[in-house]
């Protein structure tokens, strides 16, 4: 498959804090024959304010995003949570005759990265190589709200040299939850500690995830506790050679 025009929604976290994840996303998709378009007008999807209850405050950002991606054939993003948010817009603008149809169009063409590779490009092995033991944290919005469970596992199992160890209690949230991580910091700390302990039990070299927010949370705690586990976004794993 070649010359698929992909419009990239990179997410504000990747844009500002995880540029390497963005680069890896571009390189993986280009290698698979995609032609990448990155509209510079993209900002944040509005999720932090929206989830905190500030629906009106976040609507301008949402409208901005809908307009920015209107021209796209397909929108791909390296985040299950932000992809979910794009699909949520149609419900948020449910009673808005102008923005609802535009939001519905955006929802119908938005894909999370691994979902896009496996289900749209129909590629299960991207030819990546990485040696070591890995465990995977399935992020909540990606698995429960977006419903993408198998695609990342399919791709990771085909990474040459990667040995897999299941994460105990993988289904439990890592304690990020956007503003929850600071608003309820004491609870969040216990949740992320349990996640880090679980990862440590697997003796994995790599903890892999597909959502920047969760990885920032788990990774930040791993660093603070000085654990020898490298946190990697799945795009970086798929881009390893």
């Amino acid at each position, binding site marked *: 498959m070649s010359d698929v025009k992909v419009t990239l929604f*990179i997410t*504000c976290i990747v*844009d*500002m*804090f*995880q*540029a390497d994840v*963005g*680069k890896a996303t*571009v390189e993986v998709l*280009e290698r698979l024959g995609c032609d*990448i378009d*990155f509209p510079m*007008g993209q*900002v*944040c999807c509005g999720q*932090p*304010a929206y*989830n*905190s*209850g*500030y*629906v*009106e*405050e*976040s609507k*301008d*950002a949402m*409208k*901005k995003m809908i307009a920015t991606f209107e021209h796209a054939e397909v929108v791909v993003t390296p985040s299950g949570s932000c992809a979910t948010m794009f699909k949520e817009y149609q419900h948020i603008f449910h009673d808005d005759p102008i923005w609802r149809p535009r939001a519905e169009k955006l929802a119908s063409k938005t894909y999370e990265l691994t979902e896009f590779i496996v289900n749209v490009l129909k590629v299960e092995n991207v030819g990546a190589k990485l040696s070591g033991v890995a465990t995977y944290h399935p992020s*909540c*919005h990606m698995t*429960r709200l977006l419903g993408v469970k198998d695609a990342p596992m399919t791709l990771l199992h085909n990474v040459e040299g990667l040995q897999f160890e299941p994460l105990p*209690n993988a*289904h*439990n*949230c890592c*304690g*990020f*939850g*956007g503003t*929850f*991580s*600071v*608003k*309820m*910091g*004491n*609870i*969040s700390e*216990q*949740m*992320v500690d*349990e996640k880090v302990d679980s990862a440590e039990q697997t003796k994995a070299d790599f903890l892999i995830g597909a959502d920047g927010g969760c990885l*920032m*949370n788990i990774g*930040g*705690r791993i*660093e*603070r506790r000085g654990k020898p586990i490298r946190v990697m976004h799945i795009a970086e794993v798929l881009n390893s050679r």
Partner: protein
Amino acid sequence: MAMKIGEGKFKDNVNKNMEDTFMRGAVAGAQERLRTRRLDAAEELGNWEEWRSHGEEIRQHVLNNLDYYLHELTENIQKRGGHVFFAETADEANAYVREVVNSKNGKKILKAKSMVTEEIGLNQMLEEEGCEVIETDLGEYILQLDEHDPPSHIVTPALHKNKEQIRDVFTEKLDYKLTEKPEELALHAREKLRQEFLTADIGITGCNFAIAESGSVGLVTNEGNAGLVTDLPKTQITVMGMERIVPTFEEFEVLVGLLTRSAVGQKLTSYITALTGPRMDGEADGPEEFHLVIVDNGRSGILGTEFQSVLQCIRCAACINVCPVYRHIGGHSYNSIYPGPIGAVLTPLLGGYDDFKDLPYASTLCAACTDACPVKIPLHELLHKHRQVIVEREGRAPISEKLAMKAFGLGAASNPMYAAGSKMASAMMKPFTKNDRISSGPGPLKAWTEIREFPAPNKERFRDWFKEHEKGGGGQ
């Protein structure tokens, strides 16, 4: 004790309870067991998603036609000589029960497990009246013995106690001399309770589902205590939340199957009882007098609102058993007899935001609750709706947060502001950055960096890299 079980602030409760390592160990272990059992039971039944949809449909149908079914239920109970009282408030419900108890000169009252009687503070009222009230559900019995320790879970109320702690309670209160083996503890409680059943004046139960077509009260237990509570005393009083109705036995069967599988991973519980009014001529057992108290206590105010779906709840606690927040803070932190996700949605609706506005924020919106709910209540969406109401309709958010979110709204939606902000971030954070990490951040980052490292903003943002990358013709 009514719905509110303490005066402490949510944050203080959380900090206190998180130090209770016994409780946390007990909760984590129970969550894992109950989750696995629930998933196995759903798998064994097959077509779980269809059953969930069916359950949702039944509950929605009942809520949308509640007046009709309440009327049908009432008529059918009255036809068989039962009494029905509709209580708008907790006080009205308690006053009615008090009247019945006094008219029977009731002194010893036996109870089967009931959350709604906890909600209205029935035991406390009866004790103030000078009655002896005895809980017969083992979990509730333990808590009652332990100086009325409040329940921390809606199905297994003593979940926060381990067997050693229970042994200690029995040793102190019941002169118990055996070990912490559950079998020995349960047998001892059974022997004690048996004596009580025979001498009680009045039996009080809750109601899992009332069946409108027959005027029956459906009860689900594993200990058989509800049967004894209703069979032996001469007077039976059942207290139910006004939404706990099913049209016929057909729907009762569906919902009981969802309830027992979701609550404890059982196909059926050991006892499923349907009681229909007082004993009629020629019948062998049953009470001489039957009273049904239907409690509103704020429920009708939820009907027809954006929160109506919370009334679909069948009190199985599946959401509590998967909640990663409940896992660490336990039930008592919520300050409500209704803890966990269902409690964080329901409690502020019944008890108001003044006391409970922190609860909707005690969630990462991870949606594990929504996923587990057998009647498809979108719990995480309702938690989010509460936040929206608190911020937008009630205007109760802190000023600093409001300003930050206003700024976020402006900044995120505007290209020049986003571009400038994201570009400047790296330079602004420089004084706090060491090895590309911020270990002690300023302002809003402080709360984050108290717990974790924060990544320094990239000097070259992704978009800067992409511009260069594009110039190179998309090459490597």
